[in-house]
């Protein structure tokens, strides 16, 4: 069972104050409390307990403690931040682009035919396919520069994705301006499209 409702008051304070972050660390020294916040499944019923920016902070906090991606929260925040602000879109993407499990899986997903298994990459894939501003997403992926970020670029540049030519052209200009080597840019395409 998620302990988010019980811990919501402390999470709200910790989201903006390092002193309360420390108090949250102390409060979760107990294994059961930590499990209830980091490993437990978060459901729709938990969503009203925190504001979107508090959820964003909490997802990062959970990820940094090895917690699983909470897909229901990602979808909730994706809807909230669909039209901005840019910083919150960037931060939300960073939750998954820096997730260790998503990055391990992304490193092996070099073909479009391979199935995505983890919840983090599943969300990234649909997020890329549905992105209203694909170039903003491409910029964010380049900024994080992780295997999961390259997976986002692979999805955005896949030939069957309708906007792929626009993204490919922009990535070409980006790489050319920085004289990036082919070893790096090859990772931005599925092997079928290299």
């Amino acid at each position, binding site marked *: 069972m998620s302990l988010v409702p019980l811990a919501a008051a402390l999470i709200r304070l910790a989201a903006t104050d390092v002193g309360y972050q*420390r108090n949250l660390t102390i409060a979760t020294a107990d294994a059961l409390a930590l499990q209830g916040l980091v490993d437990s499944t978060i459901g729709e019923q938990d969503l009203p307990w925190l504001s979107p920016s508090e959820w964003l902070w909490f997802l990062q*906090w959970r990820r940094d403690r090895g917690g699983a991606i909470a897909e229901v929260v990602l979808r909730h925040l994706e809807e909230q931040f669909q039209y901005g602000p*840019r*910083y919150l879109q*960037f931060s939300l993407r960073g939750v998954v682009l820096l997730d260790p499990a998503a990055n391990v899986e992304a490193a092996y997903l070099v073909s479009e035919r391979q199935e995505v298994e983890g919840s983090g990459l599943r969300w990234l894939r649909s997020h890329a396919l549905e992105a209203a501003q694909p170039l903003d997403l491409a910029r964010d992926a380049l*900024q994080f*520069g992780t295997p999961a970020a390259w997976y986002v670029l692979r999805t955005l540049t896949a030939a069957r994705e309708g906007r792929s030519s626009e993204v490919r052209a922009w990535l070409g200009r980006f790489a050319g301006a*920085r004289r990036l080597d082919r070893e790096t840019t090859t990772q931005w395409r599925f092997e079928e499209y290299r």
Partner: protein
Amino acid sequence: MATTLVPRKLRDAIEQAILDSSAGLDDLVADNLEMATWPRARRLPLAVKYVPSEYAADYRAPNAGLYIGANNYTWGRGVYVTGVSEPLSTAIYGRAGVLSRFDPAGWRAFDARIPANEDLYLRWLQAQPVYRDAVLTVHSGFWLNDLRNHFREQFHIDVVLFRPDERDAHAWYTQMSDTWLTVSDWTASGALGTEYSTRFSESRLTVLIEEEFKEDDPALTRSPLFALSGGSPASSTLSNLVRHAYAGNTMVRVQS
């Protein structure tokens, strides 16, 4: 874990700056060594971190160490300390001065006190994919702190040396020529760590500040609330007194 996507020439220049910055770190280490105490053969440098009074008691007994600060500090997420040779420099942030030993052997430093290195950082910043959003939106402060984290992660910088960017209203405690440090902890995947730092050891409450500070509005300075002596409590002997106190497991009380 993260790849840096800047032109090779800039990347190489930053790597060279990191190599060159080791001289500044070496000097800092030499200026901040602990007292020689038997049977300890090797002297390590001492760092000072001020914490709010509510955490002071934690450091009077075996403890979990120094807590890693949040993103919204000057160089992003990290532990912010000074060397013991400038023992009052960050007393504006709390009354409890915690001393710790640290071992910087092999650390990669970035000396941001050097204008040429600041220039390199700015060139790196301008080359970032999200640079326009970072400087042209109301959330610039958040973006820029995140990007400092990215910079430190991309180049695996263990410590940034920089000049203070806040001080007490009368400059009795903080001198703008002091050196502040941002120390990184790392996760297994090469990201900046959180919670308690593993970089510092034997953290003990060693300096107790009588003065209390409040943030001025806007928070460009912090003003002393007592200012009883009407001057600075700093002295040429204070640093050594603090080193002795740490070695002897006692405390130095600094009057307002």
